């Protein structure tokens, strides 16, 4: 049922659109504005998702929407010196770094950078002005606004975010790092929009970090469209380490063409409420699509990962591995769906979700799902929800490890299966370290931040290892 405040917020969005139309449309291309109007109509029709929708059965947005949010349609954040409030401390990770503050591209160097090899990295708003042909060729082609309500809302209000275009045959050496910062002294609702294009045979590594530098309520609803053209190789990492009062919905739409390889890896270390939607369309044969996730949640945090993979073409392989450790009253949802269409012969699709519950109150809902219409395929799915293996615990203790150490060792080992999929060594080490700190109860969301928390008590989330 649509609750009163969600329908109020829906009305507010529709009203805002009318009022702020000019600012919202900005320099967007006519095509983008057509897509926008279509999405707005969808949003008007469907509103916010409710628990009646299959994708949202175990995740209720409505309590999060009961807030007086502020909106920024004209980019108040543009000229803030972001270095003063945030520096990434993965020292040996040499990246091309981009920062979004409250959903807007921060003009640190230039709004758009065109590298010597033709790669374009920068602000989507600026790209719509300067490279409208490239934007129009791709934008809206992957995002399924008819199917996903939150993607429709994002599209209706799309203004700015990350834009990357890697021309055919170009390998971008440095990983591109997107740092998404929320920092406001009042509740904000943000909708960054990202468009990433890897041309034929192009190679790109994208590291996407979500941080909140505030204890205030924030709601981020982001859409990323990512296109991997023929023979392209794209690795996408997401690190989510956000405050207890932050809500994050990420709608990720990946489109893969012939013989492309795509991997995604979502590490959720903290976040009051997190919903990640990965929707992958494999439209041509011989692709590889790998999707990994790790979530470590406690207190009353909630994380929901939805992975939809559509095998439309033959001889491709998709692999999903999502693992989670839940403490206190934390809840997690995993829904993985693999659709193998009739012509997608010789598809290999694997799906696995494993959860460890540290308390009786923690809860995991897992729904692996295969829908297969081709007859020559190799598919499997599996899901487990359980506790640490008591036999293994005894084995470790019988060698002299105390319970706490044994439990930590097993949880770290459990998590490492996902962490080891990270192919950038510096990033893997750093994340391994963060995961270990997180599992030992030593990681604060303010670990990343240099200044902000001087004024406030750091927020730490301890997974209490004494419980089992």
């Amino acid at each position, binding site marked *: 049922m649509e609750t009163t405040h969600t329908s109020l917020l829906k009305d507010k969005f529709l009203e805002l659109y009318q009022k702020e139309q000019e600012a919202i449309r900005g320099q967007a291309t006519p095509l983008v504005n057509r897509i926008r109007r279509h999405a707005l109509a969808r949003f008007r029709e469907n509103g916010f998702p409710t628990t009646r929708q299959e994708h949202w059965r175990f995740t209720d947005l409505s309590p999060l929407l009961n807030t007086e949010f502020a909106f920024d349609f004209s980019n108040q954040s543009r000229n803030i010196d972001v270095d003063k409030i945030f520096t990434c401390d993965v020292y040996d990770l040499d990246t091309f770094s981009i920062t979004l503050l409250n959903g807007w591209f921060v003009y640190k160097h230039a709004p758009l950078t065109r590298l010597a090899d033709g790669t374009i990295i920068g602000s989507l708003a600026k790209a719509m002005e300067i490279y409208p042909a490239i934007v129009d060729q791709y934008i809206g082609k992957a995002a399924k606004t008819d199917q996903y309500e939150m993607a429709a809302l994002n599209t209706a209000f799309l203004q700015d975010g990350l834009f990357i275009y890697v021309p055919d045959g170009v390998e971008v050496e440095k990983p591109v790092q997107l740092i998404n910062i929320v920092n406001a002294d009042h509740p904000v609702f943000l909708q960054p929009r990202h468009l990433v294009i890897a041309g034929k045979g192009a190679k790109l590594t994208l590291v996407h970090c979500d941080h909140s530098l505030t204890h205030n309520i924030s709601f981020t609803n982001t859409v990323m469209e990512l296109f991997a053209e023929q023979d392209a190789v794209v690795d996408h990492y997401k690190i989510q380490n956000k405050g207890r009062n932050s809500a994050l919905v990420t709608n990720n739409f990946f489109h893969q063409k012939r013989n492309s390889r795509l991997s995604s890896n979502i590490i959720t270390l903290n976040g009051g409420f997190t919903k990640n939607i990965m929707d992958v369309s494999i439209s041509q044969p011989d692709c590889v699509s790998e999707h990994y996730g790790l979530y470590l949640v406690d207190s009353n945090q909630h994380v929901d990962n939805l992975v939809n993979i559509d095998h439309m073409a033959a001889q491709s392989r998709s692999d999903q591995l999502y693992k989670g450790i839940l403490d206190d009253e934390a809840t997690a949802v995993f829904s993985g769906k693999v659709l193998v269409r009739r012509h997608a012969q010789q598809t290999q699709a694997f799906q696995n979700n494993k959860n460890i519950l540290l308390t009786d109150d923690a809860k995991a809902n897992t729904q692996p799902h295969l829908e297969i219409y081709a007859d020559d395929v190799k598919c499997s799915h599996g899901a487990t929800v359980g506790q640490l293996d008591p036999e293994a615990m005894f084995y*470790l203790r019988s060698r*002299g490890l105390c319970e706490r150490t044994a439990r930590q060792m*097993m949880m770290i080992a459990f998590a490492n299966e996902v962490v080891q999929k990270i192919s950038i060594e510096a990033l893997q080490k750093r994340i391994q370290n963060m995961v270990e700190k997180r599992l030992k109860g030593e990681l604060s969301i303010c670990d990343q931040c240099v200044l902000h928390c001087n004024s406030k008590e750091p927020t730490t989330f301890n997974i209490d290892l004494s419980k089992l």
Partner: protein
Amino acid sequence: MLQIKNLTVSIHGKPIIKGLNLEVKEGEVHAIMGPNGSGKSTLASVIAGREVFDVDQGEISYMGKNIFDMPAETRAREGLFLGFQYPVEIPGVSIANFMRTAINEKRKYLGLDPLTGAEFLRLMEEKKKMVEIHSKLTNRSVNEGFSGGEKKKNEIFQMAMLEPRLAILDETDSGLDIDALKVVANGVNKLRKKDNATIVITHYQRLLDYIVPDFVHVLLDGRIIKSGNKELAMELEEKGYDWIKKETANDAV
């Protein structure tokens, strides 16, 4: 070193060990033999500290201390070692990391400084040579994907690393071919010292050709019904457990 008096153990109300007595002194090797279900593995588990069993009666003292006052990890740090019949696979935990943690936790308990990385590696190389395991095994996850023989060799390697005062080897010979059996037995023999002791639990006499026991005990239905020297093991092998059942039945008459 180890004294067991009138031990009675049950699981879920079902009695398994029914009044068992045993004494093991420094430098001795004891073999406990018996058919399946006689309580051999339960005895090993109770000594090592597995918590699923209920100790209904009796006492076990180890190095003069009541063993039931100590959790499993403390027993291990006090020098007790259990070689598992079915070593557990622990994906993601490397043997090297596991052993380093185990040794350093033990050293901390004993008031010693932790081993440095270099010291640990040296120790590991030395022990690997001693128990004839190839070098790559220790980089792998604990027992993950190991063959039966590799798992048992890994138990002996861990034993060598931890240098226990009292080692209990629970059917270490089961599932081993003769070459693996020799390697395991060799390892155990090399680790024998004047001040440590070993309890070998086995179904068959075969292992005792390689690890020669000072005492042999026959466990039947939760009790040690006969003790003797290594000749007893040979006799048992020849005549089978039915022989000893009859013999003790006659004794009772």
